[in-house]
């Protein structure tokens, strides 16, 4: 086992995978990556399972020094990564040698960045079936907390990566999504028709109160139902309307149960663009149908599946089966760093 030394902690960087799903019935928040699409892409680029643990960071990423060779991929927000002072691309597998340093500039757009490491990801202990960090209860990840200077993140070194030269994905042009699609929530019918149409027609912005638990929005307050609700389960993307008439969109570290009326739920295919949206950007909610939401999510998944298939197809192109040291040399030549 090798380690990544944390030279600078960055801001609120945590170890995350796809979350601790199975223990919600006991009150454990799911946690996991805020932008799951970006985590999955990062893992795919370094040949990991989608659920492998990676580093999630916000605003300004950490400075890291690798103690052994591996491959990394950085996805998500425009975090301007550099390797030993030279800029490196997002959405691409990058070869790393022992002693290499990776650092980031403050993010230009987006909120959450991801750094995945080949050969199974960050090897922090598995807790209740997941390596995700839940800060509020100091569970999982690296000691249940954010990174600190001097931390050592364990990983398995990796000397070859199949199809290395082809492991890159297009970096989509960042544009404001404008519309975030939703399905009606369990308490949709408790809202008056006027409140429902106001919710769908007005412009919202993400407020400054936005963290891993949820994003509070700002817009004209909605009339709130007077019914007294009893707590029920919550899911990723639920939109609660609090007593002051403002929505909160529940995200990765949400409480497992809540008692505010849920007017709608953000569809899975739009969660990543919602989570990465900047504060103050205008958007509207748009009602969609269950079948559309399913089809959009399936199409998003298909992009990753196609990418994975293209990597697998390139894998057996020449040179076939070089010795480990030879492959490593080859990788260095490909990345012009030999």
């Amino acid at each position, binding site marked *: 086992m090798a380690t990544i030394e944390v030279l600078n902690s960055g801001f609120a960087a945590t170890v995350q995978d796809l979350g601790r799903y199975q223990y919600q019935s006991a009150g454990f928040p799911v946690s996991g990556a805020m932008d799951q699409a970006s985590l999955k892409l990062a893992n795919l680029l370094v040949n990991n399972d989608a659920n492998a643990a990676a580093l999630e960071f916000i605003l300004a990423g950490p400075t890291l020094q690798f103690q052994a060779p591996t491959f990394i991929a950085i996805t998500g927000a425009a975090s301007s990564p550099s390797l030993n002072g030279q800029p490196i691309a997002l959405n691409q597998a990058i070869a790393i040698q022992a002693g290499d340093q990776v650092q980031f500039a403050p993010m230009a757009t987006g909120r959450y960045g991801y750094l995945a490491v080949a050969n199974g990801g960050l090897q922090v202990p598995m807790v209740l079936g997941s390596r995700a960090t839940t800060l509020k209860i100091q569970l999982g990840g690296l000691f249940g907390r954010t990174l600190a200077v001097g931390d050592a993140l364990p990983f398995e070194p990796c000397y070859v990566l199949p199809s290395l030269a082809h492991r890159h994905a297009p970096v989509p042009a960042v544009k404001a999504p404008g519309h975030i699609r939703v399905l009606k929530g369990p308490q949709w019918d408790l809202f008056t028709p006027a409140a429902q149409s106001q919710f769908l027609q007005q412009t919202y912005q993400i407020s400054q109160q936005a963290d891993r638990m949820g994003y509070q929005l700002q817009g004209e307050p909605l009339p709130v139902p007077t019914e007294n609700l009893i707590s029920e389960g919550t*899911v*990723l993307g639920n939109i609660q309307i609090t007593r002051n008439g403002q929505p909160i969109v529940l995200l990765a570290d949400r409480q497992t149960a809540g008692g505010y009326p849920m007017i709608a739920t953000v569809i899975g295919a739009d969660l990543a663009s919602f989570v990465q949206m900047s504060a103050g950007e205008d958007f509207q909610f748009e009602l969609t149908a269950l079948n559309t939401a399913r089809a959009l999510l399936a199409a998003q998944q298909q992009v990753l599946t196609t990418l994975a298939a293209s990597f697998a197809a390139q894998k057996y192109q020449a040179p076939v089966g070089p010795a480990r040291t030879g492959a490593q040399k080859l990788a260095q030549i490909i990345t012009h760093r030999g």
Partner: protein
Amino acid sequence: MNAYHYHYVPMGESALDLVLPNKIDVGQNQLIQTVGQQLLAQKIAGVTAIIPAYHTLTVNFVASLVTYGQLTQVLDRLIAAFDPQQAAANSRVLAIPVCYDGEFGPDLAAVAAYGHLSVADLIQMHTQTKYFIYMMGFLPGFAYMGTVPKQIAMPRLDKPRARLEPGSVGIAGAQTGMYPVASPGGWRLLGRTPLQLFNAQHPQLRYQAGDYIQFTAISKTDYRRIQALDLAGKYQIKQTILGDA
């Protein structure tokens, strides 16, 4: 054939809610717990998690592996086959030791006065009821339990305390509960259990929704003794089955 009133509602494309009438009722909640467990036991590909609550069962699933329609059909069959007598008889009753002492229970006197009782009678009343766990959340190990006898069902404090110690046991109206971790809270505190209810190093919980909790009064000496035993991993919670009593 049971005649339960329920419906389903999507929670996004990757979850659904089974919704029963908006009430707090043990029989209805036992249906939710039982159906939820039976759904998981079927190991349907794509079903990832459930969240049973007072009157809802939230089911999380992978939309590309199983559909909303397939799941509601399975749930319909489980609800039709639900046996309320068996569910009630199979419930576990867990004995949780609590030290009802002024140091741990700053609201003992106020709640006793509210119920026109002596403190001893208040403790007697709080310990003689078996409290049903309707749901877990909002924190790991926080159990929403009822029902507290009306006479001592004092509403919560107007102004919450900034910090309640882990293990604090209190009441809020008809609900009673214990705090697994330190947290602000407005519950009326009657005592504290020496048991570690949540430990991030060993996060498995010792009770779940659908269990009954019965508090047993212990002395301060026993509190220290049990706390030491429990920290050493040597304390077993006394457990009985409701139907065996």
